[in-house]
């Protein structure tokens, strides 16, 4: 029941964020969306993701969006367009296909699901012994999947580098 209420609020937030013409409102509603999503992650047992969602989604990305809003126009222009039938049909069809696809997915937390029978038992059995770490998420991210995380860190560094190259004004040259 609580999950359904959270899902309902997620939908309301998502639709409102799209419909809003005042961009600042959209940004604030998106941050509420992330906060609800963080609660959903906790309910799904993914506490690491929940912390990330709360810190990044509800916190820093909201601030960054607002920082961008200081540089652009704050109101979306109101444009009246006719109801377009073909795109609507395409969107509904794709949505229906995706929902149909979820019907084949294993139940949440099912012990026979492929993800839970392939490498997960191996990690759970040998993880503490091999990595000396109690948190499996940290063990997988930093140790078993160390290459991936190194790549992610490089991506973040590169993002910062690109922003510096694009936005930083070089006063000596001007």
């Amino acid at each position: 029941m609580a999950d359904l209420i959270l899902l309902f609020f997620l939908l309301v937030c998502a639709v409102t964020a799209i419909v809003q013409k005042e961009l600042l409102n959209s940004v604030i509603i998106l941050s509420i969306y992330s906060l609800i999503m963080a609660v959903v992650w906790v309910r799904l047992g993914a506490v690491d993701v929940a912390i990330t969602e709360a810190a990044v989604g509800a916190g820093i990305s909201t601030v960054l969006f607002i920082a961008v809003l200081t540089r652009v126009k704050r109101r979306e222009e109101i444009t009246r367009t006719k109801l377009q039938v073909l795109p609507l049909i395409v969107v509904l069809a794709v949505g229906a296909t995706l929902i149909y696809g979820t019907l084949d997915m294993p139940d949440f937390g099912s012990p026979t699901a492929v993800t839970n029978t392939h490498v997960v038992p191996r990690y759970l059995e040998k993880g503490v012994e091999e990595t000396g770490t109690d948190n499996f998420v940290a063990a997988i991210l930093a140790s078993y999947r160390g290459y991936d995380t190194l790549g992610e860190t490089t991506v973040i560094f590169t993002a910062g580098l690109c922003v510096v190259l694009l936005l930083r004004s070089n006063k000596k040259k001007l």
Partner: protein
Amino acid sequence: MSEKEMADDLVTDEQNSQIIRKTLVKKLIAFIQLYALYIIIFGELGPGGGFQGGVILGSSIIIYILIFGLEEGRKRISQKASDLFSSTGALIYGGVGLLAILFGGHFLQYSALPLGEPAVANHYGIMAVEIGIGITVAATMIILFCEMIGRD
């Protein structure tokens, strides 16, 4: 009350609310940063890790800049420092990986580091890597925010 007096009242109100905000933020930042460090260091025992802790560490500086302004904030952490930290974290990560090669393991095989039992060495390796991620993420968040609000 004349118009000028009303305007004066508004100014003092504005200044007073500034004082409240500034005092609050000054007191809060210590706790935010302590929490960030806790999340980075204990990321391998409980939920959290370098990425989440780094974001929170970066936000503590961002909230300072929001209240005190970009110039005051840049006195706390200069442009050069945040640029340097951003690359230092990634270098720590890669450096730990290369150290493992020096001690006869594979790239990023922390258990090869000479820190005792393989599991213990791995434990320290993960911790070093998480700290590296935290430094990079925190510095990058500060850079992103400062460059976006900084007027040319």
